[in-house]
């Protein structure tokens, strides 16, 4: 096996998620499988190359790390068994920890509203989540038609429900505390 002896960024990624980006030989299979590339500023394999080159700033300020939906298609395809989605997740964590302004401001905002909702009630309540997200993002009315339609079809419950194991859920949050998006949420 090839040893990870590359850039400091490669070593940091390996320490965070165990993935050895040095193994990437730029075949591009990850990128030709990813369905989200039209919205990305770096293709997944370009991101891997930049990790090898230690281009931390470009990566942490990229839109790609926030556009990635963690669908793991790339991971499933990589001929070198690199968890590409895991590497991108590590980059997201680094961006949050280092306070880099996210290129896609609303994505981390959505994540933290989502996790905040789980932390409070143990279960997602669509009106609470969307209310919090829309208030914070300032994007108030973009899918209002959809919301009305979903309400009409009974897809959205107006009154939030609680789960029983709320204490355990809070413990999970506090034990994982401070790491990445969760900690800041």
């Amino acid at each position, binding site marked *: 096996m090839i040893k990870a002896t590359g850039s400091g960024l490669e070593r940091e990624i390996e320490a965070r998620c165990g993935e050895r980006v040095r193994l990437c030989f730029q*075949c591009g299979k990850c*990128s*030709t499988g990813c369905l989200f590339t039209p919205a990305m500023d770096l*293709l997944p394999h370009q991101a891997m190359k930049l990790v090898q080159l230690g281009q931390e700033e470009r990566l942490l300020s990229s839109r790609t790390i926030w556009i990635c939906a963690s669908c793991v298609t790339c991971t499933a395809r990589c*001929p*070198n068994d690199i968890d590409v989605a895991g590497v991108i997740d590590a980059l997201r964590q680094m961006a949050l920890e280092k306070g880099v302004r996210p290129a896609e401001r609303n994505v981390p905002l959505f994540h933290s509203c989502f996790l905040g909702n789980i932390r409070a009630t143990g279960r997602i309540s669509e009106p609470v989540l969307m209310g919090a997200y829309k208030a914070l993002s300032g994007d108030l009315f973009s899918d209002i038609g959809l919301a009305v339609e979903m309400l009409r079809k009974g897809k959205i419950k107006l009154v939030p429900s609680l789960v029983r194991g709320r204490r355990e859920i809070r413990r999970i949050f506090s034990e994982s505390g401070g790491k990445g998006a969760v900690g800041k949420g």
Partner: protein
Amino acid sequence: MEAAKHENIKLVTNTEVIGVDGEAGHFTVTLRRNPWYVDIERCNGCGACVDVCPIVVPHEWDMNLKPRKAIYAMFAQAAPLKYVIDRERCVECGLCMQACGLDAIDLSQEPYEERLEVGAIVVATGGQVFDPSAIPRYGYGRQENVVTNMEFERICNAAGPTEGELVRPDGKHIRSVAFVQCVGSRDVNHNPWCSFFCCMAAVKGGRLVMEHAPGAEVLVFYNDLRACGKGFEELYRRSVEEGMRFIRSIPTVYENRTRNDPIIVYEDPETGRIERKEVDLVVLACGLQPSPAGRSLRGLLGLPRDGYGFIREAHPVDGLCETPREGVFIAGVCQGPKDIPDCVTHGSAAAAKVGIILSGKGTESCSDA
């Protein structure tokens, strides 16, 4: 063909090795001679039987792209060029017997055992081509116009199903071809090794397309282009100059909803963006791997395997033809992926080592020499 005519070479075809005893210089090999259902001493290869046989089935040799009869010769250069009956398909109608002027057809033949005394054995069982339906994103098996490199060889061959005309399986003339490299090879999820021949085979295939159909577009989607060896880098460069496009991106092949033309999704090196392109034919560069037939013979001879299932050579530098069993040698792809020139070199070396055994000097002397 030439080998078949050599006075010191006896071809034993349609035969399985079922036992090997003894030691270097004195092996007894037990063979199972399978019936041809044709007396090959009498058959002169005229083919009158084929014309009358009513049974038509897909021809394996032409990757099922062309039909054959129940009585057939595997291919035009087969040695010996005699006819054989596929008894699983034959309906015993007897028409071939009536047609044969030499009374060569004999449906009553049975398999029989035979023993051979030999001084040395060379295993040259080759390998098997990777089955690309194991990787669904290339569309093989679901899209008619996605073919393997093996099928493409037949499409290009003058004696193949299209008589050398560049026509794809659905009948359209080919004006653009995408070669997709490293299919199943260099992939820890499948075969981690490089199959060695497929980069240059794609360059060769691309050149054939440009010759047969001037102006046709040839795109090679590759990972690294391995053009090692005398003359290969030059051939690659000449191909680039003559218009073959090499794109470093292993694509996904999408199905086209409106036409039969597969869609290649790849990274355009000029824009650095993901682009789509329709092509007439996709050729998958399926790699080489150990074959089940080779594996059973290896087991019979008690030879060791390497980490991948190829036969392990005695030494990776100075024992490439030898095995731990004295008097048993290996040549070609059964030892690992190779191209034809390397197989020929390997085979010649093995033959020279056999010569040493047959001259009674043993293998020790060859390493001392």
